């Protein structure tokens, strides 16, 4: 599957209705259909970096959906390499723009909109945290690059040799980069193979998704993130005493 062209990707996800989505400045916004169900779509493509204006455009569509399309599921497509690393973006308060986008998604959730994420390309660092990781369910194409950062970048910052990190990543999927290891941590529900029927799959995920955050439990069950669930529960138990 060619994921480099956003139009091909949208056709595969939403069929003819994908053509009604606006693809502009590497952002995807609008309304489309999954099989026969209407959905709102916010997304990034081309591995773009997300800046203040981009966060506002995505937030604007979420607000419109809440206001005009009660309970319509919101599909989030992620292909972004990160937050725009610029002094002006930081000066203008990029974190607050991301917080606003997340707050919009939270109100959507509270108002009964299902939030479904699919990592279609790059889903890295702050760009994934600022909307995609907030989904009720988080899916990934098997070709997606999901994670905090590639091992080479991690090595450059931590000064730990890449060979050491690579060797450790064999038993520590948290250090590995990609959709499969991220799923082992519980951060992705399911990795979709290249031959999956996307609309059918997506419709099934929308219909079966629930709101509770089950990632820590999933990470423990799958063995990639063994401690988070137990530590969370220990705090809950001891604070109740």
């Amino acid at each position, binding site marked *: 599957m060619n994921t480099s062209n956003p139009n091909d990707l949208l056709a595969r996800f939403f069929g003819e209705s994908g053509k009604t989505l606006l693809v502009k400045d590497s952002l995807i916004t609008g309304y489309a259909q999954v099989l026969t169900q209407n959905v709102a779509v916010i997304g990034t493509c081309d591995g773009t970096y997300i800046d203040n204006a981009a966060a506002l455009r995505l937030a604007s569509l979420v607000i419109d959906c809440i206001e005009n399309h009660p309970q319509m599921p919101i599909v989030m497509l992620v292909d972004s390499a990160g937050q725009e690393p610029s002094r002006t973006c930081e000066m203008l*308060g990029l974190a607050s723009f991301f917080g606003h986008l997340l707050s919009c998604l939270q109100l959507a959730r509270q108002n009964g909109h299902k939030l479904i994420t699919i990592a279609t390309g790059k889903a890295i660092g702050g760009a994934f945290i600022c909307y995609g990781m907030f989904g009720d369910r988080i899916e990934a194409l098997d070709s997606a690059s999901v994670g905090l950062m590639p091992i080479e970048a991690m090595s450059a910052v931590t000064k730990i040799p890449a060979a050491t990190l690579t060797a450790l990543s064999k038993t520590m999927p948290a250090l590995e980069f990609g959709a499969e290891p991220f799923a082992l941590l519980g951060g992705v529900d399911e990795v979709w193979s290249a031959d999956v029927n996307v609309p059918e799959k997506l419709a099934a995920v929308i219909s079966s998704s629930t709101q509770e955050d089950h990632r820590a439990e999933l990470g423990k069950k799958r063995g990639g993130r063994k401690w988070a669930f137990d530590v969370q529960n220990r705090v809950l138990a001891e604070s109740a005493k």
Partner: protein
Amino acid sequence: MKRASLYHEQTARKRIASLVDPGSFTELLPPPERVVSPYLPLLDIPVSFDDGLVIGRATLGGKPVYLAAQVGQFVGGSVGEVHSAKLTGILKAAARDAIPCLLLVESGGVRLHEGSSGEIGISEAMRAVFECRAKGVPTIAVIGADIGAYGGMGILVTCCDFRIMTEHGRLGISGPIVIEKWMGKQAYDSSNRALVWKTSGGKTKYLLNDADVLTHDDSASVGAAIGELLSKSQPITLGGLKTRQQELEKRLGDFGKTSDPEEIWKAFGIADIGEASLASGPEFVALAKRKTP
């Protein structure tokens, strides 16, 4: 008058002790329980018995609170798997018990040594912040340490009901060193502390309304600011989000073309940049004309 010690110079446990009612703090999963990072020993890095996060409950002015305080001295207050799980746990406890939660933030963001594990952990903590907000349980972040709130922690604090900053606090996502590497030293000289603080420091964040309160860099002032906010919350409403959207669009229109933070200061009535640079938090507030939301 006896001067209280500077907030930014204190350690996490001292900060808690200086803010809450004397003797009221009970730590959960305290150091003797050795809830440590399972990752760091594999990388030959020493662990800390609290994994860089102190959590517990206390009273403040007689009212119960839950607290989480990050330890900046330990791997930059960074958020790994255990650290994030403690944070998520205390926020979920706050939501469950309808008790306000204070976050004393001092963190560069996700702990790189634990890879994607801390990234997912921060996202879980964000969900827990919003669990509190959905129930009207106040979440208050205090950002007053030199490390500030960066990366995923920078995003997380913007999800809370309120942010209290001192002139020492910084709030952002990408830190100055990362941006310098990316854009070059001419675009952002990370060793220029004045520029770094004007870009991401409490004063500019206060002007832009990203910090609700700008206080003195001492515990008494921070504590008073917390006291003011403890019984308030900011429910997320459609009207509120639409107003916020307009505010942020206006901000982008007003200042999107400049990269000079002094333009923002001037636009908010700061006539003498030098005087304002040396001003304490409250002095700066008096000099500026912030538009109240």
